[in-house]
């Protein structure tokens, strides 16, 4: 039996267009962008209604990468779900793990038992991963609008981060490093020094990056005043993360919720001010990302300093000391959220108190809500600007589709 029996109406039935040819006006056209298009950052199809070069409406079609994370999570114990959490936002797996693990720890009531060294290591790796995620976002965004150099420069620097993270846990992208109640391993010996070396190397590179792309005249002309997202609209659509901050709201869950050890660390929250155009345009979104990289570096430096002074590695330090043998939370509902590089990642858990597996586990994906604003801000723009807007939202289809 062949693996797939071809019928020409399969595609029409499985993902029909929202608009039909009868509904659109005579000089309008339905254009499909994707699913295999580099500017859609994964597999997503945009059904674009165009009038010449002008975009009249955009309908995103999702689900090409759907694996039903929630069904998986409902069928296995809490700790075994962590690798699936990695595969949601595969560019920032450490941050997703951190959010998920915090939720489970809160349900068990062991979040106060976690030793400070473990918490600082978690924040350290999460911030390293945030840097890697922002590097990819800015790099591919440059490529989307025609600048190839920043992509190569940023991939070069991202490679260092991936190697550092590979050194800690053996995997380059999907780590399974942060466990419920602790960590997989302690940091390898010499990691702190090497990481410090890397940060010293990276600092001038970020200035270089700022001059290369953010202040670049061509970049400014392509992005300023394009895709302006006002703050009230952003909040109404549930947009969060750098995009919401670019719209001018100083709102960062690391400060608002003050989870983990973030209250002990010093960092600023950069927001968009419309320096090159209007507040909340594509330029502001990238400006905020680059500035956040600076803040992440500050956080990493403080973590390294603590990890090398009062929280130094000791012989009897066991990162798995509080890892529970059996995870069976009491009967409760819990919503936990954390600041991912792309926005607010939330998990809704329902534990029934009788089993080791969650009754329901819903992931509130930040990219999913961020992407939903796309039709609103891309009405009436040119097709080339649509690509610029899609890139500036910086979504990962693995997390949109879950």
């Amino acid at each position: 039996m062949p693996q797939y029996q071809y019928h020409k109406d399969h595609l029409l039935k499985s993902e029909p267009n929202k608009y039909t040819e009868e509904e659109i006006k005579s000089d309008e056209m339905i254009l499909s962008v994707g699913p295999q298009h580099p500017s859609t950052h994964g597999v997503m199809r945009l059904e674009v209604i165009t009038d010449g070069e002008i975009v009249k409406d955009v309908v995103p079609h999702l689900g090409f990468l759907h694996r039903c994370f929630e069904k998986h999570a409902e069928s296995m114990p809490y700790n075994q779900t962590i690798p699936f959490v990695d595969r949601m936002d595969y560019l920032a797996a450490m941050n997703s793990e951190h959010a998920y693990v915090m939720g489970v720890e809160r349900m068990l009531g062991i979040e106060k038992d976690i030793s400070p060294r473990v918490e600082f290591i978690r924040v350290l790796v999460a911030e390293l991963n945030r840097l890697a995620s922002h590097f990819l976002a800015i790099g591919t965004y440059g490529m989307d609008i025609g600048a190839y150099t920043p992509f190569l420069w940023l991939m070069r620097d991202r490679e260092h981060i991936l190697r550092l993270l590979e050194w800690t846990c053996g995997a380059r992208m999907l780590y399974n490093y942060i466990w419920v109640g602790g960590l997989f391993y302690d940091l390898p010996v010499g990691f702190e020094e090497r990481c410090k070396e890397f940060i010293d190397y990276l600092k001038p590179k970020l200035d270089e990056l700022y001059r290369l792309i953010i202040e670049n005249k061509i970049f400014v002309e392509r992005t300023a005043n394009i895709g302006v997202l006002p703050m009230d609209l952003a909040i109404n659509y549930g947009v969060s993360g750098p995009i919401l901050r670019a719209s001018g709201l100083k709102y960062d869950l690391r400060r608002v919720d003050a989870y983990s050890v973030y209250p002990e660390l010093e960092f600023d929250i950069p927001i968009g001010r419309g320096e090159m155009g209007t507040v909340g345009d594509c330029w502001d979104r990238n400006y905020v990302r680059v500035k956040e990289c600076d803040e992440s570096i500050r956080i990493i430096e403080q973590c390294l300093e603590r990890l090398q002074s009062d929280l130094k590695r000791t012989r009897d330090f066991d990162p798995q000391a509080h890892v529970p043998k059996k995870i069976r939370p009491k009967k409760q509902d819990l919503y936990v959220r954390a600041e991912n590089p792309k926005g607010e990642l939330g998990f809704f858990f329902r534990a029934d108190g009788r089993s080791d597996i969650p009754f329901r586990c819903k992931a509130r994906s930040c990219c999913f809500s961020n992407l939903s604003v796309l039709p609103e801000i891309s009405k009436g723009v040119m097709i080339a600007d649509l690509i610029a807007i899609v890139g500036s939202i910086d979504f990962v289809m693995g997390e949109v589709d879950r």
Partner: protein
Amino acid sequence: MTFEEIVELISSEFGEEVILEKDLTSSPESLFVPVDQVAKICRFLYEHEATYFDFLSCLTAIDNGPQINTMEVVYNLYSIPFDHHLMLKVVVPRNEEGKALPEVPSVSHIWRTADWHEREAFDLVGIAFKNHPDLRRILLPADWKGNPLRKDYQDLETYHGIKVEY
């Protein structure tokens, strides 16, 4: 505002009988309200100057299974200026296979976050949202049969001639 103050505000506006049940074990604390009132209560909470829940964090649909025979929709509200949370819940009877889907009023005209979240709930759990502007499947193909997050969901044998079981 604390949870008790929010509850008091709702019951003074809509009457005591809309507070069906309070659940203090959940985090944040949650409140069961009647299905037919939920859109009005959400609108009130969104507009009232003391609550001002301007951010819908999450919308979750839950199937409680054929034994309990109910389904739930959970709204996680958050207010950015006041920094307070609320979890609202509604319970609807579960439909049998082949019967009309349970209906819950849509809140997508209040928070447009709910637009896609309700489509996802419709797609994966099978709850119809009344007055939703565009209720189509979002993650699964349009010609998929069944709702995978129902507790009694059975996989299809084949989809377009492709074996589903692996």
